[in-house]
Each structure stands twice: as C-alpha cells, then as structure tokens.
C-alpha cells in the first residue's frame, strides 16, 4: 500500500509541477487570443492556480 501511496504522491507532485510550467505559460503567452488579453498582473495571477490545477482541460480545449 505504501508503494501505491508513494506513486500517487509523486504523481500529484509531477502533475502540479507540469501545471505550474503550463500555468506560467498560460497566464503570460497563452492568453493572447482570450478576452483577457492585455489585462493586469493581478487578474493573471488570480488565474494561475486554476491553470495549475486544470491544465489538462485547457490543453484539450486548445487542440
């Protein structure tokens, strides 16, 4: 059980790390074609946690 738990915990860590990289891209470059383009830093930072957590949904929506 510990092995599975470790696998899951590292999986979560990797998920969040990828999310962080994607999220930073998303709030800087990724918003160019969004109604949000050109908006302030605070709005972008507010969107970061969302992008980090649901990045697979955003990737899917893009493609």
């Amino acid at each position, binding site marked *: 059980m510990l092995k599975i738990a470790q696998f899951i915990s*590292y999986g979560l860590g990797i998920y969040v790390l990828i999310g962080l990289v994607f999220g930073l891209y998303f709030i800087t470059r990724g918003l160019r074609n969004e*109604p949000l383009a050109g*908006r*302030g830093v605070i709005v972008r930072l507010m969107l970061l946690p969302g992008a980090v957590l649901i990045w697979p949904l*955003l990737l899917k929506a893009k493609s």
Partner: protein
Amino acid sequence: MSHDFVPVQWNRQKYVYDGILIVAIMAFLSSFILFGLNAKVADPSILIMRALGACAIVLLHVVLAIGPLARLSDRFKPLLYNRRHFGVITAVIGLLHGAFALMWYHGFGVINPIASAIGGYGDYGVPIEFPFESLGLIALVILLTMAATSHDFWLSRLTPPIWKALHMCVYVAYAALIGHVALGTAQFDKGVGLFWALGIGAVLMSGLHVASMLKGRSLDTQADMKTDWVNIGDPMSIPLNKAVTITPANGERIAVFRHAKGISAVDAVCSHQNGPLGEGCVIGGLVTCPWHGFQFDPETGEAPAPFTDRVQTHEVRIENGTVWVNSTPDAFGTKRIAIQVPS
C-alpha cells in the same frame, strides 16, 4: 460582466458580505479555541488546527445550504449573490487545516507527508482501520480546484456545462469530508456529540436540497405534448414582470415572461452560471437573473451593451386567449417582438 474581466467586481454589498463572513469565521475560531482550552490539549497549535478543520466543514454546510435556501425564500438571495467568495474562503480555511495537519502529523519523516497520510498505515478495507486523512485530501483537492476556477474567466473559458459539472463535485467533497470527520472521530473519540452534529448536518443538507428540488418542480409546468408548441394557458396567469417556467418534453426549460410590452419567452437557464432565469424578474424592461443580476432583453435574449451574454428566444403566439410557446429555440440574437395581450 463578460465584456471584460477584472480581478473582482467589487461593490458595496460584496464588501459588506465578505466583512460579515470574516467576522463570523473569527467568532467561530475564537469561541472554539476559548471552549477548547478547557480540555488542556498538549499544544495550542493542535487546537488551532482543529478549529480550522471544524470551521471549514461548518462553512461548507452553510455554503451548500445557500442554493436551496435562496430558492425556498427570496430573503436568502443576498447570500447567493456573493457565494463564490464564501466558497473560496471555505477552501482557504480547509487548506490551512490540511497543510497544517499534514505537516504536523506526517511531515519531517522518512517518507513524504502525502504518501504517509494516504498509505503509511491502516487498511482501506476495514472502516476502523481506514486512513481517514485520504478523504480529507480528496475533499481539499476538489474545494481548491473549485476555488481556483471560480472566476468568471474560467466559466466562459471552460464553457458553462463543464464548469458547472466541475463545481457539482462539491457534493463529492462534502461526502468525503463527512467520511473524513466521521472516521477520524469514530476511530478515536468516545464522545458521540460530534457524531450527532455531523448527522444533523447531513439530514439538514439533504432535507433542504429535497425541499428546494420539490419547489423547483412545482414552479415548472410540465408540458407533456410532443409537439413543438406548448400551451401556457391564460396570459393573465403569468404575474406581471415575472415568468412561468415550462419544461417541454423535448429540450431545455423555457421562461415565459409577461412585461410592459407583452409576452416574451427566453431560455430559463441563465448563460452566466445556469441560474434559474425563470425565477427572475423584469427590471427596467430587462429580464434579470435572481442569482447574479445578469440581464437580458426579453425580445432579443441579448444583454445590454457592453455586455455580450445572451440567451435564446422562443416564438410566442396568443390564440383564443391562450399563450402558446414554440419549444424549439430561435437562433441566438433572433428578435421576437413581445406579443401584446389582447384586452
């Protein structure tokens, strides 16, 4: 609204709302700690950690009750208006509890805290051996995802159906939290007080949701005819500036409004957060959603400029003193002149 995204659309009511909420949280935490100090717990940190956890689950009960309460009585609509701030604050309190407890009880060891919490001990097959921390973690992940995607940007970006589905997971989080607290309590605490409190909470929640569902149904007129045209009945049976909501056999619910210009029909589902437009009101000639006050022209289904939200219109006829509505919606933006009620 969706013409532009700002961090938070602050207004006076939101400030007041958040202020009262923070005062309530402080009241909860301080009375918890004050009464808990009697118990001579080993370390005040533990009391604070527990107070935060208890606070999060109490807040979750309240936030879940807001929807049904607002449907049952208009007086609770102000609670609903700023519900997302309530949700975000609940998630933050839950995060504080979770992070604190995870580091305190599982941190600084030889395996990572999350692995230790979800698989370091116990047996998932036996209730009394169940690692109850894992249920708390599931709830926390859901609440955080909801909080992180609560901004209207995510609503439009993900599209309302996906966003709504994501946010319906709050019920999964609620069930997981009940399990988290019940198992944690059952595994240790001999006192049954908390069990009763949890049970009463769960019964209240289900009762409110069932009551609001029944009320929602009674507001809707079920149209069982398979034809496109649905009979609404006497136009004067629709209260002025209000709507009658019907559920056609095929398709989405329709709100049929009677307003100064006559009778108009639009989708009963608000394009913003799927709010119950049919329970709204015509204010200044605009259909206004009871949830967040989004407005639509009853004749075009479009929000006034500069807003870009819109709902679909439906064709209306009055024949022999009876209102008929076409259950097939028009294309977005189709203008349907309101049908005057023959005097």
